């Protein structure tokens, strides 16, 4: 596709449920990033993939959060036992290589009720 695509655009889930957020990066981009953004704050780094492997997962807040990128393209962010504090905009970005500024998708707004 022309840009980074994230699905769904909106997700409402009940506290305690499991959710998956999908990111389709720009074709050919090897680097992929996940960020989380709360209202009024800047995006907060979660995890960075170079190819299939997580090069830096230091931003994941706890072990309820996990992300995969099995074939080096599409990535899925998985959140177990969701909590109301997980409500935020989840942003995915990709870049051709890790030394280029990334392009962001439109985000998935997650609401935990």
């Amino acid at each position, binding site marked *: 596709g022309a840009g*980074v695509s994230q699905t769904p655009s909106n997700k409402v889930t009940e506290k305690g449920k499991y959710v998956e957020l999908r990111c389709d990066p720009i074709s050919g981009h090897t*680097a992929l*990033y996940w*960020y989380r953004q709360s209202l*009024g*704050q*800047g*995006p*907060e*780094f979660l995890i*960075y993939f*170079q190819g299939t492997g997580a*090069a*830096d997962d230091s*931003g994941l807040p706890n072990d309820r959060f996990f992300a995969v990128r099995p074939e080096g393209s599409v990535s899925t962010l998985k959140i177990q036992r969701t909590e109301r504090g997980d409500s935020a*905009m989840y*942003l995915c*970005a990709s870049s051709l*290589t*890790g*030394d*280029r*500024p*990334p*392009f*962001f*998708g*439109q*985000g998935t*707004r997650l609401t935990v009720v």
Partner: protein
Amino acid sequence: LAKTTQPISMDSYEGQEVNITCSHNNIATNDYITWYQQFPSQGPRFIIQGYKTKVTNEVASLFIPADRKSSTLSLPRVSLSDTAVYYCLVGDQLSGNTPLVFGKGTRLSVIA
């Protein structure tokens, strides 16, 4: 990672030039300076990136003094559609192993 400081908000009238300055006193040798723009409910959009002196593209200019401890994003003749949050980021782009870290940004309001 070098920390950045930028004004929380700025106001400007349409047609004026807007300069947003960012301080990054602890910038490292391999760090580049990158600016993003973000509209409500959208992902950040890359504006410009530089290492030293001046960089210009069709959207903005980026001025970086010799000591690189600050940088200024210049938006020529802003319009209402430039109302957005602008983020200054500093990071090691050469190694390709360090993701960009966002601060709170500068909320620019353009008034008719």
